[in-house]
């Protein structure tokens, strides 16, 4: 095949696109905590769990955009010493869900169920709390 310099920019672009494609297709947003908590993924929603003095807060985002908590509900189940404790999640400001009064001892396992109230779709994630 004869060399054709004009083709290289196209080939380079295609190669770059191919190299980027998997990460673009797989990324659902940053997994770095923004509120000092722990991050996990429920379906495609990035969930940050933050232990607060009066309970647990969850911050929801998708592809780095906040997910309004007004359309969400769910439960938080804490498995520690003794029987599992389930607490309902209530919408807070912006992308914040709250489980007021929930206690999470160190070493507990916290399972979050998120309910999208528009589609009734449920998604789950589990945190191992240190």
């Amino acid at each position, binding site marked *: 095949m004869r060399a054709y310099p004009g083709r290289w920019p196209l080939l380079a672009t295609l190669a770059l696109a191919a190299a980027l494609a998997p990460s673009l297709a797989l990324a659902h947003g940053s997994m770095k905590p923004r509120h000092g908590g722990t991050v996990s993924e429920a*379906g495609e929603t990035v969930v940050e769990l933050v232990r607060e003095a009066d309970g647990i807060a969850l911050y929801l985002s998708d592809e780095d955009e906040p997910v309004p908590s007004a359309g969400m509900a769910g*439960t938080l*189940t804490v498995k520690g010493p003794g029987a599992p404790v389930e607490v309902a999640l209530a919408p807070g400001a912006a992308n914040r869900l709250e489980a007021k009064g929930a206690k999470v001892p160190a070493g507990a396992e916290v*399972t979050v169920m998120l309910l999208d109230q528009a*589609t009734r779709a*449920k998604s789950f994630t589990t945190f191992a709390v240190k």
Partner: protein
Amino acid sequence: MRKVTSCVLAGLIAAAALAPAAADAHGIWFAQRAKQLALIYGVGADDLDMVKRMPLVKSVAGFDGEWKPVKVALRAAGPIVLVDSDKPVAAVAAVMDNGVWSKGKDGEWQKKGRDELPDAVISERTMKYAVHLPALPSTPVPVMPDQTLQVVPVTSPLPAQLGQPATFRVLFQGKPVEGALVKHDYVNDPDQEPLKTGADGTVTLKVRNQGLNVVGATFVGPSDDKARYDKVEHFATLSFVLPHAPE
């Protein structure tokens, strides 16, 4: 040109003749749709109307990682059927009674028994079963009472990479069955030549996909109502998911 037309016509006639048998071979399995777990009815890439068939589903069951029951239900979400649960599931199973079908002398399948079509060429009842493992289990898959025909992994844990061999056992009424026909990928290779289980009910095959695998098994059992159908065709799937590389 005339020869080509004849060949095409012959092909179409052959396809039409085969179609009823293909329709009869449908199964149920579970697959992820928009991060939700859906119950699928079909064969190969044909993902048919499960919503209208929901009344045919006789049971659905969920299990946690210790094989304890988890409450699950089915719900229609637009044109698909989703598994609804308030808790995460490590496994889910379903049974569907697809009813009695008879093939008349004219080659047409009808949803009738031999009592209504006495001169039928074949009358059969078809039962569909499905077990799904969203993540590879760390403990052996138990025998599930509702799954009259069940495919269980013998290799434990299942390989995490495609192309690795894995042995499966087909159970009929909880016992290994010889001569069941097993396909290693019911979704992506539905026309493959099936393997037959040996005397111990096992087959060994290579895990085909780094993603969803749907192993399908067929076993024809005796009729429990000879006045209506000659046999009961049981079709069971075991679907499991091999994880992809970390994102």
